[in-house]
Protein backbone atom coordinates (compact mmCIF):
# COMPACT_ATOMS: atom_id res chain seq x y z
CA UNK A 1 0.00 0.00 0.00
CA UNK A 2 1.15 3.52 -0.76
CA UNK A 3 2.39 5.71 2.03
CA UNK A 4 0.02 8.25 3.53
CA UNK A 5 1.12 11.71 4.65
CA UNK A 6 -0.35 12.33 8.09
CA UNK A 7 0.20 14.43 11.17
CA UNK A 8 1.81 12.43 13.98
CA UNK A 9 -1.16 12.67 16.33
CA UNK A 10 -3.55 11.45 13.64
CA UNK A 11 -1.21 8.69 12.50
CA UNK A 12 -0.92 7.40 16.07
CA UNK A 13 -4.72 7.43 16.38
CA UNK A 14 -5.15 5.46 13.16
CA UNK A 15 -2.50 2.98 14.27
CA UNK A 16 -4.55 2.29 17.41
CA UNK A 17 -7.66 1.66 15.31
CA UNK A 18 -5.64 -0.74 13.14
CA UNK A 19 -4.55 -2.53 16.33
CA UNK A 20 -8.17 -3.20 17.24
CA UNK A 21 -8.77 -0.39 19.71
CA UNK A 22 -12.24 -0.97 21.24
CA UNK A 23 -12.53 2.15 23.36
CA UNK A 24 -10.81 5.49 23.85
CA UNK A 25 -11.25 7.83 26.82
CA UNK A 26 -9.54 11.19 26.91
CA UNK A 27 -9.53 14.83 27.86
CA UNK A 28 -8.16 17.62 25.63
CA UNK A 29 -4.69 19.12 26.01
CA UNK A 30 -2.18 20.62 23.55
CA UNK A 31 -0.07 19.29 21.76
CA UNK A 32 -1.99 16.01 21.36
CA UNK A 33 -5.50 17.27 20.53
CA UNK A 34 -5.55 15.99 16.95
CA UNK A 35 -5.34 12.45 18.35
CA UNK A 36 -8.69 12.41 20.22
CA UNK A 37 -10.18 14.68 17.57
CA UNK A 38 -9.39 12.09 14.90
CA UNK A 39 -10.73 9.24 17.05
CA UNK A 40 -13.91 11.18 17.87
CA UNK A 41 -14.73 11.07 14.16
CA UNK A 42 -13.40 7.62 13.33
CA UNK A 43 -14.31 5.45 16.34
CA UNK A 44 -18.10 5.74 15.87
CA UNK A 45 -17.67 4.87 12.18
CA UNK A 46 -15.96 1.64 13.28
CA UNK A 47 -18.69 0.91 15.85
CA UNK A 48 -16.30 1.53 18.71
CA UNK A 49 -16.43 3.73 21.81
CA UNK A 50 -15.07 7.27 22.10
CA UNK A 51 -15.66 9.29 25.25
CA UNK A 52 -14.41 12.78 26.01
CA UNK A 53 -14.45 12.51 29.78
CA UNK A 54 -15.04 15.37 32.23
CA UNK A 55 -11.41 15.26 33.39
CA UNK A 56 -8.17 13.33 33.04
CA UNK A 57 -8.89 11.48 36.28
CA UNK A 58 -12.27 10.38 34.94
CA UNK A 59 -10.72 9.33 31.61
CA UNK A 60 -8.05 7.08 33.17
CA UNK A 61 -10.62 5.47 35.47
CA UNK A 62 -12.82 4.74 32.44
CA UNK A 63 -9.73 3.11 30.92
CA UNK A 64 -9.38 1.09 34.15
CA UNK A 65 -12.99 -0.08 33.91
CA UNK A 66 -12.96 -0.94 30.22
CA UNK A 67 -9.61 -2.74 30.55
CA UNK A 68 -11.08 -4.75 33.43
CA UNK A 69 -13.93 -5.77 31.16
CA UNK A 70 -11.37 -7.11 28.65
CA UNK A 71 -11.53 -4.32 26.03
CA UNK A 72 -8.57 -3.03 24.03
CA UNK A 73 -8.40 0.43 25.50
CA UNK A 74 -6.31 3.58 25.21
CA UNK A 75 -6.00 7.11 26.49
CA UNK A 76 -3.73 9.91 25.38
CA UNK A 77 -2.64 13.16 26.95
CA UNK A 78 0.32 15.46 27.39
CA UNK A 79 2.57 15.90 30.41
CA UNK A 80 0.31 17.81 32.90
CA UNK A 81 -2.60 15.55 31.94
CA UNK A 82 -0.47 12.41 32.31
CA UNK A 83 0.51 13.64 35.77
CA UNK A 84 -3.19 13.70 36.67
CA UNK A 85 -3.58 10.15 35.38
CA UNK A 86 -0.93 8.64 37.66
CA UNK A 87 -3.43 7.49 40.28
CA UNK A 88 -5.37 5.51 37.68
CA UNK A 89 -2.17 4.10 36.18
CA UNK A 90 -0.95 2.63 39.46
CA UNK A 91 -4.39 1.01 40.01
CA UNK A 92 -4.33 -0.42 36.47
CA UNK A 93 -0.82 -1.80 37.00
CA UNK A 94 -1.80 -3.10 40.45
CA UNK A 95 -4.89 -4.81 39.08
CA UNK A 96 -2.77 -6.23 36.22
CA UNK A 97 -4.76 -4.80 33.36
CA UNK A 98 -3.61 -4.06 29.81
CA UNK A 99 -3.94 -0.51 28.48
CA UNK A 100 -2.04 1.80 26.14
CA UNK A 101 -1.25 5.37 27.16
CA UNK A 102 0.19 7.90 24.75
CA UNK A 103 2.09 10.80 26.29
CA UNK A 104 2.87 13.60 23.80
CA UNK A 105 5.27 15.41 26.10
CA UNK A 106 5.40 19.20 26.56
CA UNK A 107 7.56 21.34 28.80
CA UNK A 108 7.03 21.54 32.57
CA UNK A 109 6.90 21.68 35.52
CA UNK A 110 3.31 22.63 36.26
CA UNK A 111 1.50 23.77 33.14
CA UNK A 112 4.90 24.57 31.62
CA UNK A 113 4.48 25.28 27.92
CA UNK A 114 3.02 23.66 24.83
CA UNK A 115 6.25 23.02 22.91
CA UNK A 116 8.16 19.70 22.69
CA UNK A 117 9.94 18.21 25.70
CA UNK A 118 11.30 14.95 27.10
CA UNK A 119 11.04 16.06 30.72
CA UNK A 120 8.70 13.23 31.82
CA UNK A 121 11.44 10.61 31.43
CA UNK A 122 11.81 9.92 35.14
CA UNK A 123 8.07 9.91 35.80
CA UNK A 124 7.55 7.45 32.93
CA UNK A 125 10.44 5.12 33.70
CA UNK A 126 9.92 4.95 37.48
CA UNK A 127 6.25 4.06 37.28
CA UNK A 128 4.94 7.50 38.13
CA UNK A 129 2.30 6.66 40.73
CA UNK A 130 2.60 5.01 44.15
CA UNK A 131 3.91 1.53 44.80
CA UNK A 132 6.31 -0.85 43.08
CA UNK A 133 5.26 -0.93 39.44
CA UNK A 134 6.55 -0.03 36.00
CA UNK A 135 5.15 0.77 32.58
CA UNK A 136 6.60 -0.90 29.49
CA UNK A 137 7.59 2.31 27.73
CA UNK A 138 8.38 2.81 24.06
CA UNK A 139 9.97 5.94 22.61
CA UNK A 140 9.70 6.03 18.79
CA UNK A 141 11.77 8.51 16.75
CA UNK A 142 9.66 8.70 13.58
CA UNK A 143 6.00 8.44 12.60
CA UNK A 144 6.57 5.09 10.90
CA UNK A 145 8.14 3.71 14.06
CA UNK A 146 5.39 5.25 16.22
CA UNK A 147 2.71 3.60 14.08
CA UNK A 148 4.47 0.22 14.07
CA UNK A 149 5.06 0.29 17.84
CA UNK A 150 1.49 1.39 18.65
CA UNK A 151 0.12 -1.44 16.50
CA UNK A 152 2.26 -3.85 18.53
CA UNK A 153 1.77 -2.13 21.91
CA UNK A 154 -1.72 -3.55 22.46
CA UNK A 155 -0.31 -7.06 22.15
CA UNK A 156 2.49 -6.17 24.57
CA UNK A 157 -0.03 -4.77 27.08
CA UNK A 158 -2.18 -7.91 26.76
CA UNK A 159 0.83 -10.22 27.05
CA UNK A 160 2.13 -8.64 30.26
CA UNK A 161 -1.29 -7.56 31.56
CA UNK A 162 0.40 -4.24 32.24
CA UNK A 163 0.02 -0.69 30.92
CA UNK A 164 2.24 0.29 27.97
CA UNK A 165 3.32 3.90 27.62
CA UNK A 166 4.09 5.42 24.22
CA UNK A 167 6.42 8.28 25.09
CA UNK A 168 6.78 10.86 22.32
CA UNK A 169 7.37 14.58 22.37
CA UNK A 170 5.25 17.34 20.88
CA UNK A 171 7.44 17.37 17.79
CA UNK A 172 6.39 13.84 16.83
CA UNK A 173 2.77 14.69 17.59
CA UNK A 174 2.78 17.76 15.36
CA UNK A 175 4.98 16.81 12.42
CA UNK A 176 3.86 15.17 9.17
CA UNK A 177 5.66 12.27 7.49
CA UNK A 178 4.62 9.61 4.98
CA UNK A 179 3.61 6.40 6.77
CA UNK A 180 2.89 2.87 5.59
CA UNK A 181 0.08 1.57 7.80
CA UNK A 182 0.13 -1.98 6.45
CA UNK A 183 3.64 -2.92 7.56
CA UNK A 184 3.78 -6.23 9.43
CA UNK A 185 4.50 -5.95 13.13
CA UNK A 186 5.37 -8.82 15.51
CA UNK A 187 2.37 -10.72 16.83
CA UNK A 188 2.61 -11.79 20.47
CA UNK A 189 1.38 -15.15 21.75
CA UNK A 190 -1.73 -14.10 23.65
CA UNK A 191 -3.98 -16.14 25.91
CA UNK A 192 -7.74 -15.53 26.11
CA UNK A 193 -8.69 -12.91 28.72
CA UNK A 194 -10.23 -15.41 31.14
CA UNK A 195 -9.59 -12.96 33.98
CA UNK A 196 -11.86 -10.24 32.54
CA UNK A 197 -14.93 -9.04 34.43
CA UNK A 198 -16.96 -9.20 31.24
CA UNK A 199 -20.32 -10.28 32.67
CA UNK A 200 -20.06 -13.72 31.14
CA UNK A 201 -20.56 -16.01 34.16
CA UNK A 202 -21.76 -19.19 32.45
CA UNK A 203 -18.66 -21.35 32.68
CA UNK A 204 -16.44 -19.82 35.30
CA UNK A 205 -16.05 -18.52 38.82
CA UNK A 206 -16.43 -14.85 39.67
CA UNK A 207 -13.61 -12.62 38.31
CA UNK A 208 -12.55 -9.76 40.56
CA UNK A 209 -10.53 -6.75 39.40
CA UNK A 210 -8.72 -5.37 42.41
CA UNK A 211 -5.47 -3.84 43.63
CA UNK A 212 -6.17 -4.14 47.39
CA UNK A 213 -4.33 -6.84 49.38
CA UNK A 214 -4.76 -6.23 53.12
CA UNK A 215 -2.82 -9.31 54.21
CA UNK A 216 0.90 -8.41 54.05
CA UNK A 217 1.78 -11.91 52.84
CA UNK A 218 -0.71 -11.68 49.99
CA UNK A 219 0.56 -8.25 49.00
CA UNK A 220 4.16 -9.41 49.12
CA UNK A 221 3.32 -12.34 46.85
CA UNK A 222 1.47 -9.97 44.53
CA UNK A 223 4.45 -7.59 44.46
CA UNK A 224 6.79 -10.47 43.65
CA UNK A 225 4.48 -11.64 40.88
CA UNK A 226 4.59 -8.14 39.39
CA UNK A 227 8.36 -8.07 39.78
CA UNK A 228 8.64 -11.26 37.74
CA UNK A 229 6.97 -9.41 34.85
CA UNK A 230 9.35 -6.49 35.10
CA UNK A 231 12.28 -8.91 35.25
CA UNK A 232 11.03 -10.58 32.07
CA UNK A 233 10.74 -7.19 30.38
CA UNK A 234 14.33 -6.40 31.40
CA UNK A 235 15.75 -9.82 30.49
CA UNK A 236 13.94 -10.43 27.20
CA UNK A 237 12.36 -7.28 25.87
CA UNK A 238 14.88 -4.45 25.89
CA UNK A 239 14.89 -2.67 22.56
CA UNK A 240 17.53 -0.36 21.19
CA UNK A 241 19.40 0.58 18.06
CA UNK A 242 23.16 1.01 17.78
CA UNK A 243 24.19 3.33 14.98
CA UNK A 244 27.65 3.86 13.47
CA UNK A 245 29.43 2.14 16.38
CA UNK A 246 32.36 0.66 14.47
CA UNK A 247 35.55 2.57 15.41
CA UNK A 248 33.48 5.30 17.05
CA UNK A 249 35.53 7.44 19.44
CA UNK A 250 32.46 8.87 21.16
CA UNK A 251 28.84 7.74 21.49
CA UNK A 252 25.69 9.84 21.82
CA UNK A 253 22.83 8.32 23.82
CA UNK A 254 19.47 9.82 22.84
CA UNK A 255 15.84 8.71 22.40
CA UNK A 256 12.91 9.94 20.32
CA UNK A 257 13.28 13.20 18.39
CA UNK A 258 16.64 13.90 20.00
CA UNK A 259 18.13 10.72 18.54
CA UNK A 260 16.88 11.76 15.15
CA UNK A 261 18.58 15.14 15.40
CA UNK A 262 21.71 13.32 16.61
CA UNK A 263 21.68 11.31 13.36
CA UNK A 264 22.17 14.59 11.49
CA UNK A 265 24.84 15.63 14.01
CA UNK A 266 26.93 12.49 13.36
CA UNK A 267 26.77 13.17 9.62
CA UNK A 268 28.14 16.68 10.26
CA UNK A 269 30.87 15.19 12.46
CA UNK A 270 31.77 12.63 9.81
CA UNK A 271 32.55 15.52 7.43
CA UNK A 272 35.06 16.74 10.01
CA UNK A 273 36.63 13.34 10.46
CA UNK A 274 35.04 12.57 13.84
CA UNK A 275 33.56 9.10 14.14
CA UNK A 276 30.56 9.33 16.48
CA UNK A 277 28.08 6.54 17.23
CA UNK A 278 24.58 6.60 18.68
CA UNK A 279 22.86 4.32 21.17
CA UNK A 280 19.13 4.87 20.69
CA UNK A 281 16.91 3.41 23.41
CA UNK A 282 13.60 2.29 21.89
CA UNK A 283 12.36 1.00 25.23
CA UNK A 284 13.07 3.59 27.91
CA UNK A 285 11.57 1.10 30.38
CA UNK A 286 13.09 -1.48 30.46
CA UNK A 287 16.22 0.63 30.03
CA UNK A 288 18.37 -0.98 27.30
CA UNK A 289 21.30 -1.72 29.60
CA UNK A 290 22.56 -4.50 27.30
CA UNK A 291 23.59 -1.87 24.76
CA UNK A 292 26.24 -0.63 27.18
CA UNK A 293 27.94 -4.03 27.22
CA UNK A 294 28.35 -3.82 23.44
CA UNK A 295 30.23 -0.53 23.28
CA UNK A 296 33.49 -1.09 21.36
CA UNK A 297 36.86 -0.33 22.93
CA UNK A 298 37.44 2.59 20.56
CA UNK A 299 34.84 4.63 22.49
CA UNK A 300 36.36 7.03 25.00
CA UNK A 301 33.39 9.24 25.94
CA UNK A 302 29.61 9.18 26.15
CA UNK A 303 27.35 12.18 25.56
CA UNK A 304 23.71 11.96 26.62
CA UNK A 305 21.40 14.39 24.77
CA UNK A 306 17.87 15.02 26.03
CA UNK A 307 15.18 17.69 25.91
CA UNK A 308 15.30 18.03 29.69
CA UNK A 309 17.92 18.99 32.28
CA UNK A 310 19.42 15.51 32.63
CA UNK A 311 17.17 12.56 33.42
CA UNK A 312 18.14 9.54 31.30
CA UNK A 313 21.77 10.49 31.95
CA UNK A 314 21.37 8.95 35.43
CA UNK A 315 20.37 5.59 33.91
CA UNK A 316 23.30 5.78 31.51
CA UNK A 317 25.72 6.42 34.40
CA UNK A 318 24.17 3.53 36.32
CA UNK A 319 24.91 1.11 33.51
CA UNK A 320 28.24 2.53 32.35
CA UNK A 321 29.37 2.04 35.96
CA UNK A 322 32.19 4.52 35.75
CA UNK A 323 33.95 2.77 32.86
CA UNK A 324 33.69 5.88 30.67
CA UNK A 325 33.11 9.59 31.30
CA UNK A 326 29.42 10.43 30.77
CA UNK A 327 28.63 14.00 29.64
CA UNK A 328 25.26 15.66 29.21
CA UNK A 329 23.69 18.22 26.88
CA UNK A 330 20.07 19.30 27.12
CA UNK A 331 17.67 21.98 25.92
CA UNK A 332 14.49 22.79 27.80
CA UNK A 333 11.50 25.07 27.75
CA UNK A 334 10.23 23.65 24.48
CA UNK A 335 13.40 24.50 22.57
CA UNK A 336 14.48 21.70 20.26
CA UNK A 337 18.27 21.44 19.87
CA UNK A 338 19.76 21.87 16.41
CA UNK A 339 22.16 19.27 15.03
CA UNK A 340 25.01 21.80 15.11
CA UNK A 341 24.57 22.32 18.85
CA UNK A 342 24.99 18.59 19.40
CA UNK A 343 27.97 18.26 17.07
CA UNK A 344 29.61 21.27 18.81
CA UNK A 345 29.26 19.47 22.16
CA UNK A 346 30.86 16.37 20.69
CA UNK A 347 33.74 18.44 19.31
CA UNK A 348 34.31 20.07 22.70
CA UNK A 349 34.52 16.65 24.37
CA UNK A 350 36.73 15.10 21.72
CA UNK A 351 38.95 18.18 21.77
CA UNK A 352 39.17 17.94 25.54
CA UNK A 353 37.77 21.40 26.26
CA UNK A 354 34.50 20.17 27.71
CA UNK A 355 33.60 21.62 31.10
Amino acid at each position, binding site marked *: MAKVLMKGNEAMALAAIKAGLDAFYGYPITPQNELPEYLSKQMPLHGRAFVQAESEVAAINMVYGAAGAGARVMTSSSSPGIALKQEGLTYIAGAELPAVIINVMRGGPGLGGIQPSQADYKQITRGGGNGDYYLYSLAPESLQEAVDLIKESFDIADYFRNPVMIAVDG*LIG*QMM*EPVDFEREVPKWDLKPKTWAADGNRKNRKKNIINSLYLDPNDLENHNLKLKAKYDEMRDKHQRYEMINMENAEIVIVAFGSTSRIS*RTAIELLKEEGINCGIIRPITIYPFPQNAFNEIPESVKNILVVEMNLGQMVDDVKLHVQGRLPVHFYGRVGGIVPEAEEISDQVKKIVGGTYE
Partner: protein
Amino acid sequence: MINEKTIIAGFGGQGVMLMGQLLSFAATEKDINTLWFPSYGPETRGGTANCSVTISDEHVNSPVISTPDTIIIMNKPSLAKFQPKLKVNGICLVNSSLVKDEEYRDDIRVYEVDANNIAKELGNLKVANMVMLGAYLALTKVFTEDEVLGILKKKFTGSKAKLIEINKYALEAGRKAVL
Protein backbone atom coordinates in the same frame (compact mmCIF):
# COMPACT_ATOMS: atom_id res chain seq x y z
CA MET B 1 18.66 14.11 -6.70
CA ILE B 2 16.52 16.24 -4.41
CA ASN B 3 17.51 17.53 -1.02
CA GLU B 4 15.57 20.72 -0.42
CA LYS B 5 15.12 22.30 2.99
CA THR B 6 12.65 25.17 3.16
CA ILE B 7 11.33 27.35 5.96
CA ILE B 8 8.07 29.21 5.35
CA ALA B 9 7.19 31.95 7.83
CA GLY B 10 4.53 34.61 8.37
CA PHE B 11 1.44 35.54 10.39
CA GLY B 12 -1.10 32.93 11.41
CA GLY B 13 -3.89 33.10 8.81
CA GLN B 14 -1.60 33.73 5.82
CA GLY B 15 -1.71 30.08 4.85
CA VAL B 16 1.90 29.41 5.78
CA MET B 17 1.19 25.89 7.08
CA LEU B 18 -0.82 24.94 4.00
CA MET B 19 2.00 25.99 1.66
CA GLY B 20 4.38 23.63 3.42
CA GLN B 21 1.85 20.82 3.58
CA LEU B 22 1.19 21.05 -0.17
CA LEU B 23 4.90 20.51 -0.79
CA SER B 24 4.95 17.49 1.53
CA PHE B 25 1.82 16.03 -0.08
CA ALA B 26 3.36 16.51 -3.54
CA ALA B 27 6.51 14.70 -2.33
CA THR B 28 4.50 11.81 -0.85
CA GLU B 29 2.58 11.49 -4.11
CA LYS B 30 5.90 10.92 -5.90
CA ASP B 31 7.20 8.61 -3.16
CA ILE B 32 9.93 11.09 -2.18
CA ASN B 33 10.84 11.34 1.51
CA THR B 34 9.49 14.40 3.26
CA LEU B 35 8.96 15.86 6.70
CA TRP B 36 6.76 18.82 7.61
CA PHE B 37 7.15 20.40 11.01
CA PRO B 38 5.10 23.37 12.25
CA SER B 39 5.98 25.92 14.88
CA TYR B 40 3.44 28.32 16.26
CA GLY B 41 2.21 29.74 19.54
CA PRO B 42 -1.14 29.10 21.26
CA GLU B 43 -2.86 31.71 19.09
CA THR B 44 -3.91 30.83 15.53
CA ARG B 45 -4.77 34.03 13.71
CA GLY B 46 -2.41 36.99 13.95
CA GLY B 47 0.45 35.27 15.80
CA THR B 48 3.67 34.31 14.11
CA ALA B 49 3.80 30.91 12.50
CA ASN B 50 6.35 28.98 10.53
CA CYS B 51 6.88 25.53 9.15
CA SER B 52 9.92 23.57 8.06
CA VAL B 53 9.69 21.28 5.04
CA THR B 54 12.36 18.80 4.03
CA ILE B 55 12.07 17.02 0.70
CA SER B 56 14.75 14.45 0.00
CA ASP B 57 15.61 11.29 -1.88
CA GLU B 58 17.48 10.23 1.23
CA HIS B 59 16.17 9.38 4.67
CA VAL B 60 15.16 12.55 6.52
CA ASN B 61 16.87 12.81 9.89
CA SER B 62 16.57 16.02 11.91
CA PRO B 63 13.08 17.57 11.63
CA VAL B 64 14.65 20.87 12.65
CA ILE B 65 16.22 22.80 9.78
CA SER B 66 19.16 24.86 10.97
CA THR B 67 20.42 25.99 7.54
CA PRO B 68 17.57 26.25 5.01
CA ASP B 69 18.20 26.23 1.25
CA THR B 70 15.22 28.53 0.77
CA ILE B 71 13.15 30.79 3.01
CA ILE B 72 9.72 32.11 2.10
CA ILE B 73 9.09 35.29 4.08
CA MET B 74 5.47 36.38 4.32
CA ASN B 75 5.88 39.20 6.89
CA LYS B 76 8.48 41.51 8.39
CA PRO B 77 9.26 39.75 11.72
CA SER B 78 9.96 36.52 9.83
CA LEU B 79 12.77 38.11 7.80
CA ALA B 80 14.66 39.16 10.93
CA LYS B 81 14.25 35.69 12.36
CA PHE B 82 15.23 33.54 9.38
CA GLN B 83 17.51 35.61 7.12
CA PRO B 84 20.57 34.89 9.31
CA LYS B 85 19.95 31.13 9.01
CA LEU B 86 19.70 31.00 5.21
CA LYS B 87 22.59 29.15 3.61
CA VAL B 88 25.08 31.04 1.47
CA ASN B 89 23.69 31.52 -2.05
CA GLY B 90 20.26 30.37 -0.77
CA ILE B 91 16.96 31.75 -2.04
CA CYS B 92 15.15 34.41 0.03
CA LEU B 93 11.65 34.78 -1.38
CA VAL B 94 9.98 37.85 0.09
CA ASN B 95 6.36 39.03 0.10
CA SER B 96 7.23 42.65 -0.77
CA SER B 97 3.64 43.82 -0.16
CA LEU B 98 4.38 43.55 3.56
CA VAL B 99 8.18 43.51 3.69
CA LYS B 100 9.65 46.73 2.27
CA ASP B 101 12.96 48.60 2.37
CA GLU B 102 14.79 45.87 4.22
CA GLU B 103 18.49 45.21 4.36
CA TYR B 104 19.56 41.93 2.85
CA ARG B 105 22.71 39.89 3.14
CA ASP B 106 24.82 40.19 0.02
CA ASP B 107 25.59 36.46 -0.16
CA ILE B 108 21.99 35.32 -0.80
CA ARG B 109 19.59 35.53 -3.74
CA VAL B 110 16.62 37.77 -2.93
CA TYR B 111 13.39 37.66 -4.97
CA GLU B 112 10.62 40.12 -4.12
CA VAL B 113 7.03 39.28 -5.03
CA ASP B 114 4.18 41.77 -4.50
CA ALA B 115 2.05 38.84 -3.45
CA ASN B 116 -0.80 40.58 -1.61
CA ASN B 117 -1.46 43.00 -4.47
CA ILE B 118 -1.21 40.26 -7.10
CA ALA B 119 -3.69 38.19 -5.07
CA LYS B 120 -6.04 41.16 -4.73
CA GLU B 121 -5.96 41.69 -8.51
CA LEU B 122 -6.84 38.02 -8.95
CA GLY B 123 -9.85 38.68 -6.70
CA ASN B 124 -8.92 37.02 -3.39
CA LEU B 125 -6.24 38.21 -0.96
CA LYS B 126 -6.16 34.73 0.56
CA VAL B 127 -4.25 33.30 -2.44
CA ALA B 128 -1.19 35.44 -1.67
CA ASN B 129 0.36 32.25 -0.29
CA MET B 130 -0.21 30.47 -3.59
CA VAL B 131 1.40 33.37 -5.49
CA MET B 132 4.48 32.88 -3.31
CA LEU B 133 4.33 29.13 -3.81
CA GLY B 134 4.18 29.64 -7.59
CA ALA B 135 7.33 31.76 -7.37
CA TYR B 136 8.98 29.10 -5.19
CA LEU B 137 8.19 26.33 -7.68
CA ALA B 138 9.52 28.43 -10.58
CA LEU B 139 12.80 29.09 -8.78
CA THR B 140 13.44 25.69 -7.20
CA LYS B 141 11.73 23.41 -9.75
CA VAL B 142 11.07 20.93 -6.92
CA PHE B 143 7.61 20.21 -8.34
CA THR B 144 5.58 21.43 -11.28
CA GLU B 145 2.53 23.67 -10.85
CA ASP B 146 0.39 20.80 -12.15
CA GLU B 147 1.70 18.47 -9.45
CA VAL B 148 0.72 20.98 -6.75
CA LEU B 149 -2.64 21.63 -8.42
CA GLY B 150 -3.25 17.88 -8.46
CA ILE B 151 -2.92 17.87 -4.66
CA LEU B 152 -5.29 20.85 -4.39
CA LYS B 153 -7.86 19.06 -6.53
CA LYS B 154 -7.85 16.19 -4.04
CA LYS B 155 -8.19 18.57 -1.06
CA PHE B 156 -10.74 20.99 -2.54
CA THR B 157 -13.83 18.96 -3.30
CA GLY B 158 -17.52 19.84 -3.22
CA SER B 159 -18.21 23.51 -2.61
CA LYS B 160 -14.47 24.24 -2.49
CA ALA B 161 -13.84 22.89 -6.00
CA LYS B 162 -14.51 26.34 -7.48
CA LEU B 163 -11.41 27.63 -5.68
CA ILE B 164 -9.06 25.55 -7.81
CA GLU B 165 -9.13 27.96 -10.73
CA ILE B 166 -8.01 31.02 -8.77
CA ASN B 167 -5.25 28.97 -7.15
CA LYS B 168 -4.07 27.95 -10.61
CA TYR B 169 -3.90 31.61 -11.66
CA ALA B 170 -2.11 32.46 -8.41
CA LEU B 171 0.63 29.87 -9.06
CA GLU B 172 1.06 31.22 -12.61
CA ALA B 173 1.20 34.83 -11.43
CA GLY B 174 3.85 33.90 -8.88
CA ARG B 175 5.95 32.23 -11.55
CA LYS B 176 5.69 35.27 -13.84
CA ALA B 177 6.72 37.58 -10.99
CA VAL B 178 10.16 35.96 -10.67
CA LEU B 179 10.97 34.72 -14.18
